[in-house]
């Protein structure tokens, strides 16, 4: 059976197609302003790449903030259950998932069968999310992809104390004007994100092994800061960013 998952996030839209439990392919595009179109587009492009017709796919599940805007799917499910399922599918040993996406971050604790036991999400504000990092990268005039590697060179991470993205940005700007090294500022940003996530993880009762998913998992600096703060190994799979879409495709198999 062929199933698909579509994860429409605030920054990127992801799709994954599974055939008999194996990943056939995945795709990522920018969401842009039209989340409905993005969900359809990423799915169409992936099917084309795989040489599949829509009719070949038995069932589709959508997830992410734009999940309800994708009208042609069989069901919409939340990112929480999709990320949990995706992480369990990729590695059945995993008991906790840290997902940092564009506008929210969450910690999901799984039972030994991969079912969601508990979860916590960031409060009203979007500090410590992908969007937060984007704002900081702009202020520092550094490409976001270079963020991780740069921060590992830091000698003395700067202290970033504000929880508010806008205030944190002005903290960063004042550090720049004081001549602070970029690496140190970036490392400080990563530490502030890690501190926020760790508090959430401890509140919800994180259990190792831990995997990190979502676009921010590509940032090696955030992963390193999280490991240090949590005093635990944080694994990252090559499918981190499409983990939610994969989870959707896995859940679609079991749809009644």
């Amino acid at each position, binding site marked *: 059976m062929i199933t698909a998952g579509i994860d429409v996030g605030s920054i990127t839209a992801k799709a994954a197609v599974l055939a008999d439990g194996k990943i056939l392919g995945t795709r990522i595009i920018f969401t842009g302003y039209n989340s409905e179109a993005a969900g359809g587009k990423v799915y169409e492009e992936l099917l084309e790449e795989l040489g599949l017709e829509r009719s070949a796919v038995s069932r589709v599940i959508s997830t992410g*903030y734009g999940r309800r805007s994708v009208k042609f799917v069989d069901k919409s*499910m*939340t*990112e*929480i*259950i999709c990320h949990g399922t995706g992480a369990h599918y990729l590695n059945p040993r995993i008991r906790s998932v840290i997902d940092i996406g564009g506008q*929210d971050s969450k910690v999901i604790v799984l039972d030994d069968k991969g*079912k*969601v036991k*508990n*979860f916590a*999400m960031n*409060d*009203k504000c979007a500090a410590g999310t992908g969007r937060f990092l984007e704002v900081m990268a702009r202020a520092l005039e550094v490409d976001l992809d270079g963020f991780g590697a740069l921060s590992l060179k830091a000698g003395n991470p700067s202290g970033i104390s504000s929880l508010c993205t806008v205030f944190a940005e002005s903290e960063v700007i004042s550090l720049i004007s004081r001549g602070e090294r970029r690496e140190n500022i970036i490392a400080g940003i990563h530490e502030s994100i890690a501190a926020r996530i760790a508090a959430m993880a401890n*509140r919800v009762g994180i259990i190792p092994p831990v995997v990190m998913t979502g676009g921010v998992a590509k940032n090696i600096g955030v992963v390193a800061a999280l490991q240090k703060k949590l005093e635990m190994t944080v694994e990252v799979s090559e499918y981190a960013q499409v983990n939610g879409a994969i989870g959707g495709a896995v859940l679609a198999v079991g749809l009644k």
Partner: protein
Amino acid sequence: MKKMPEIMLFFLAKIKKLILHLRKKKRMKDIMMVYYMEAKSARISRRKVAWITSGGPVEPLIAMDVIPVYPENHGAMIGASKMGTDLCEKAESMGYSSDLCSYACSDIACATVNGGPIGGLPRPDMLICCNNICGTVLKWYEIQARYFNVPLFIFDTPFCHMGYTQEARKYVRRQLDEYVIFLEEACGRKMDQDRLKVVGKLSVEGQRLWQAVLDTAANRPAPMTAFDAFYHLALIVTLRGTPLVIDYYTQLLEKMKDRVARGIGAIPNERYRLLWDNIPIWPRTRWLSEKLASHDACLVADTYTSAWCGTLKYIDENNFFESMAEAYTRIYLNIGIDEMARIVLALVDKYKVDGLLMHSNRSCKPYSLGQYDIRKIVEKERGIPCMIIEADMLDERSFSESQVSTRIDAFMEIIKERKGG
């Protein structure tokens, strides 16, 4: 100037006629309209108006024929009519912090502009502030006492971490005597002790009936939801101690019993039962009730509406005045977290709920403090999923629909999975 009394008499006659007409009706809307009309025309009918906190001892006021008015009930009305954010902004422009309670802010702002859904509350002749619900009310009522230049009585109920000490008993009981003296001075006449006894009995009866109404939701399917309770609550809060409350809840109880007998549920397809904690998100109650119903989830009980009958065990109806001190001191918001958790666990069992939905209310610190501990206790003791959503009872600026929506969807996914649905 000479014509003034005639005009006043004319209006009084008009209002009385309308009130008599509406009194024949038994709907909540009409009852509340009569209540506010009487309060607003109190000056012409030569009655006194007292503003009182929601958990305050109202029975002595009723016995003195003083009309009690509740800024917090008014706050709920402001929230439900989505007028809270504007009034909070008005309070902020007056210099009040946006971190303050949104009931307090909207009331303080409303008094200066006669805003809100009913054009402001009637001017008070006195203020009765009982701090069993929070500490904010002290400053809030002081501000209003200065603004209206009226006397303020503070009824101080010490926090009961565990039990009720002899010192607290004496301290609170003595304030009841001072309260009566305050009222006698404000009204210029003596308290009628026999009348107070009658009012006390009516208050107890009203609370028992309210409890019986809430109890009907223990049935499956529940004939009413907590959202219905939020609506029907107005009378036990505002008119406790009057026969009106007895009539209304007697009828409501009959209606609910009839629904139970006929197996009629409050939502079309009740599959999951939830317990609510904290004050409702007033501007969003409809949205939330539809959201939950779309998941076949029924909010069957809550810690909020049950607080108005939660201390019946401390009241001796034959000795109401003596026992009310303890009842007013040991309310849900004035007790330790362990005791709060015991009450929540009892509700979980009584209403057989599948999950606990907690509203971390930006405005209400005493209600929201301890929720993470209570959540842990409930998860450990009963093993049901619990979730906290962040919002505000009145201020829509503290509400993010997509975030709350995702949390509720995920919460329901977990409950469905556990129940095998």
